[in-house]
């Protein structure tokens, strides 16, 4: 038999006050879900971030963004999950941009190939790329990340390695693109998308 007790009341079953707090908490959350139902948010293919980055890379001053390929258009037999823009200032082409979504999947849940426009996924991220008039990549920015893992690809320093990419199969994960342990799906996802969307741009210009 041991003396004394450091714990005060010690461990005990979820008592009445805890149960009450928990009930209020759960009711509150369901009310919250009721007021803000799970609405379908489309891809924001014209984020404010894009304008800021255009100003940063192409100089301050007015510019014109023209959509040259709208979202969900079919190009070369593939539906494009984003938009292409042409960026101009006073009749000079400053460059081009692509903004779109990459559908990812949960790690160790990727075996069954997913249809590219299956909206029924909560694993995705949205990014944009800027190209100069020579169609070289000058910037890659991930502006929305909602997948469960792989968020390390959003680091600006990591995305810097795509600057200068000018098409072709020059991007190899583990060779000239740093791999990220635990983020394999997102790494390959964004590299594949950068390669395909750059190639598509070359076909439509």
């Amino acid at each position, binding site marked *: 038999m041991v003396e004394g007790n450091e714990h005060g009341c010690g*461990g005990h079953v979820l008592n009445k006050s805890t149960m009450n707090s928990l009930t209020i908490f759960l009711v509150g959350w369901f009310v919250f879900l009721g*007021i803000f139902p*799970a609405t379908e948010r*489309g891809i924001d293919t014209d984020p404010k971030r894009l304008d800021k980055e255009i100003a940063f890379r192409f100089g301050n001053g007015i510019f014109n963004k023209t959509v040259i390929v709208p979202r*969900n258009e079919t190009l070369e037999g593939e539906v494009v999950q984003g938009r292409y823009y042409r960026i101009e200032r006073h009749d000079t082409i400053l460059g081009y941009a692509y903004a779109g979504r990459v559908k990812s999947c949960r790690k160790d849940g990727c075996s069954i190939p*997913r249809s590219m426009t299956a909206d029924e996924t909560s694993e995705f991220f949205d990014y944009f790329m800027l190209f100069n008039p020579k169609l070289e990549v000058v910037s890659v920015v991930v502006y929305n990340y909602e997948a469960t893992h792989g*968020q390390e690809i959003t680091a600006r320093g990591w995305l810097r390695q795509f600057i200068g990419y000018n098409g072709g199969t020059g991007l190899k994960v583990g*060779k000239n693109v740093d791999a*990220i342990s635990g983020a394999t799906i997102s790494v390959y996802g964004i590299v594949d998308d950068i390669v395909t969307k750059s190639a598509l741009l070359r076909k439509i210009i």
Partner: protein
Amino acid sequence: MKTQLLTIIMILCAGLVQAQQPDTITGTYKNTAEQMISSSGKLGIGGYGEVHYNQPLGKNQYQPGTLDVHRMVLFVGYNFSSKTQFVSEVEVEYAKEIWIEQAFLQQKLHKYVNLRAGLLLVPMGIINEYHEPGTFNGVERPVIDNKLALSTWRDIGLGFTGTVLPFSLKYQVYIMGGLSGYDTKAVFSADKGLREGRQKGSKAYVTSPAFSGKIEYFGLRNLNIGLSGYVGKSQSKLFVKLNKDSAELVRDADSSVVGISMVGVDFRYAVKGFEARGQFYYNYLSNTSQYNLFTRSGEKNNDLGRAMIGYYAEVGYNLFRLLPKTRLELIPFVRYEFYNMQQSVEEPVIRNQIYENTMITAGLTFKLNRYAVFKTDFQFYKAAGDPSWSKVMNMGVGVMF
């Protein structure tokens, strides 16, 4: 009151209107196989597996090796909608024990907030969350993750997780059931630590909930830093049907409980084929004095430590990075680990050097592709009082899909 009601109705209507999305799918798809798979990509199947061969190397004694299908895990997930998903993992350990590693429902409330409820992985340590064989070097998981972060540690609970992109932070915070500390006899000891207390979501009993959380920062290129914490009291079967008025029995029950606080820091860094990772863990237990006296067997007190500490540092390099044509990777690595299950003790426990261990692992990871690996390594380990190092050789195969 009327304005509030009106506002709520307007918000609900706005929500409903937004929920109507025009059908924007215009194209056809090249890959018809994709369409044959069930229900437009809602079901996800995957998994991983590891087969191990562990061979202790001794001079004077015969030492049999162990051949083991250490684990096979099947992942089944279902996306009910773009906001609601179910995630589950079924594990078969040692080719015969079946456990559920994860089984939870996740609801996206906001782009930075997801609600999770069910059997969740406790967010302590790198391995608990990233335990697929292709994601770590060495056949066996680091011993720190086993002894202090209790991998694979999972419990039933509820909480939130999300990635807050503007701050480059990912967070997880949960309330969950706790570790069992007393079940007709002591569950904890210096040798086993808290590991046997894992209830794994199997008819788990709860007498007091625990809280656990983790924050990861990923703003710096190629670096992921994590900070984890866990706090809670251990559970005790002595509270079952315990009358709150029986003072003596309540005191006994209290003596069979320890307070658990854990904190962990981890980092993973990888650049140009070079990878490094490290972890530091500290567990602090309160009330161990009473616990050890109460759970004595005969004349011998229990020896659970008041504080446990563990850390490791590992480096590796992909030699095949320099070969442009191949997807294969060959990664030699070395890892140094130290842990002490009795970093500090409370009376009447006397520290025993047998619980202060150093382990050095050196080996090769050979990746056939992103998801299939061959591994081999040598491990040298020694308790503080040992005159010489014990050695074990390991070989293993790991896949994920």
